[in-house]
């Protein structure tokens, strides 16, 4: 098999990159191994420092979890967090500063910023989880078929994946949007489809490893059908390493969805959505920078939090410490 990119599994792609890119080694042996050399002598991590780093890592992971939980509440029950209507226009108070009635002030049309932020969580999380679901199901299907198929099938599917990889995710998403029009659902599908190739590559590589393992051979010898072996034995085992990559994808998908809305190709006004809020708030950047700050902070923290949880999950699955 000649592939355009030398080793697909080693090549980080933007959305799940933090997952596939090697994370710097744990602070113990690897980094400080040449303890005798002048520049590292005396810098070996002391037990105290390691304990401190462990605690810091646990706090970061917990905070990320709490933040995402709060977002989930905002997405499912926005009414619990705010009574204000996100699209209701309060006449006479555009761009007003924070007040008792509007904790984060109002936007250029006199709408409550906090309410729009809370109600915007639904669209962002929806795109993040929905697109990831599409990418994982589609990618797993393609990867499994390619990984278990004969040379011809494998070659065909991986060529197709190569073609999709050759087009940047955003442009791929743009084709879907041109064909079916802008909107949250289209953006969700578009981001999801654009994510299929990289998932397919991971699943295929894993499937190749799993299919030659003794327990698969045993299952075949026991006379189980190909489909049963594929679904009951190959898929779960090929899927396990994918879990942290999936967690990291969610953050990437949220960022991509917000990007599309920022370009005006995702959520349409007046629907509250973080990317769209940044896009309109940008026009008032000098007078009222907070209008951009809140949604920007929301997107960034969401991507960071999902990434932190994804990496923690990865370390746990690899049997390593958190720090």
């Amino acid at each position: 098999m000649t592939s355009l990119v030398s080793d697909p599994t080693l090549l980080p792609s933007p959305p799940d990159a933090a997952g596939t890119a090697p994370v710097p080694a744990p602070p113990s042996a690897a980094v400080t191994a040449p303890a005798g050399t002048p520049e590292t002598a005396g810098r070996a991590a002391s037990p105290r420092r390691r304990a401190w780093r462990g605690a810091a890592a646990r706090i970061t992971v917990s905070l990320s979890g709490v933040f995402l939980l709060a977002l989930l509440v905002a997405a499912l029950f926005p009414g619990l967090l705010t009574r204000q209507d996100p699209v209701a226009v309060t006449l006479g108070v555009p761009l007003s500063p924070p007040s008792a009635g509007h904790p984060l002030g109002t936007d250029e049309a006199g709408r409550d910023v906090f309410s729009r932020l809370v109600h915007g969580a639904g669209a962002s999380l929806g795109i993040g989880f929905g697109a990831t679901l599409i990418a994982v199901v589609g990618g797993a299907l393609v990867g499994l078929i390619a990984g278990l198929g004969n040379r011809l099938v494998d070659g065909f599917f991986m060529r197709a994946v190569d073609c999709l990889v050759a087009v940047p995710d955003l442009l791929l998403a743009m084709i879907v949007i041109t064909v079916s029009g802008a909107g949250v659902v289209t953006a969700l599908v578009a981001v999801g489809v654009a994510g299929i190739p990289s998932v397919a590559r991971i699943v295929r590589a894993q499937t190749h490893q799993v299919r030659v393992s003794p327990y698969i051979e045993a299952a075949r010898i026991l006379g189980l059908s190909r489909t049963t072996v594929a679904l009951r034995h190959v898929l779960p085992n090929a899927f396990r390493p994918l879990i942290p990559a999936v967690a990291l994808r969610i953050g990437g998908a949220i960022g991509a969805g917000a990007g599309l809305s920022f370009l005006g190709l995702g959520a349409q006004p007046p629907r509250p959505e973080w990317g769209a809020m940044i896009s309109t708030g940008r026009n008032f950047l000098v007078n009222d920078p907070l209008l951009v700050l809140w949604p920007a902070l929301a997107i960034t923290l969401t991507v960071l939090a999902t990434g932190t949880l994804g990496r923690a999950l990865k370390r746990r699955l690899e049997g390593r410490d958190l720090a």
Partner: protein
Amino acid sequence: MRALALGRVVARRALSGVLVLWGAATITFAALHTVKGDPALVLMGGEEANPSPEALAAVREEYGFDKPLWVQYGIYFSRLLHGNLGDSYQQHRSVLSAIGIQLGPTIVLALSTAVVAVVLALAVALATAGRGPTVAGAVNAVTTVLSSVPGFVLGIALLFVFSALLPILPSAGNAGAASLVLPVVTLALPIAAHLVQVLQPELDEVLEQPFILTARTRGASVASTKIRHALRHCLMPIATMTGFVVAGLLGGAVLVETVFSRQGLGRLATAAVSNQDLSLVLGVVLFAALVFVLVNLAVDVVYSLLDP
């Protein structure tokens, strides 16, 4: 012998690149046929554009929309092979010339970004490698944050600080080198962060190798050891990540050109999607695939020269 081996590599990669382009063109052909309704009408801008019956008939004739699908596929490919990507109804010119007009600023943006990103990543990785867990942890934290922040958010943050708060750099436009600074930094920071994350463990490993100690005992300074011996080992991972970098640049240009109101391919693509200018969108997609294939071909050649 070596020239022959190199020729074989190039031939194989070129063939694989042609297959990728064929596939990408097939995807665009499929996209053309998944649109709702009459593809000729969509290509002319839909109902609202109100194209004349003559113009519609001409497009139908050109694409052979009344012929069987496989004939259309053949017609589509022979058009592409002749460099005919169709016409943009919005721009009133051929897709190829629309791309040609906007290509320059994006190439300048992409090349400057690639250079800045690689230089920055090498400088940070070399300066921080082998300095113990605290520095490694700090670098890891910064690069994680930088690679998590969506590009357009980073761009607006930089724009706010360096253009609104401290008015030292222009916020928009294509005029002069100063207008290039913020867009390039916006695009380069996440890519550099990524490269550092890949390079740093690699460098840490290299610095433990016996030949580094040998060089050090011969009296070479830390800096010169790093630059002369360790740097060479960075080239391979950078070459491997070129595909990712190129795709990131083309995708990132779409957002960054909008944030900084710059002319370029990204803006062209965004406008094309907003106006449902299908032939222009598909043209930009094919062009991106072509760039990806050519850059990877070049990387493979460099690769086999570095490591025969």
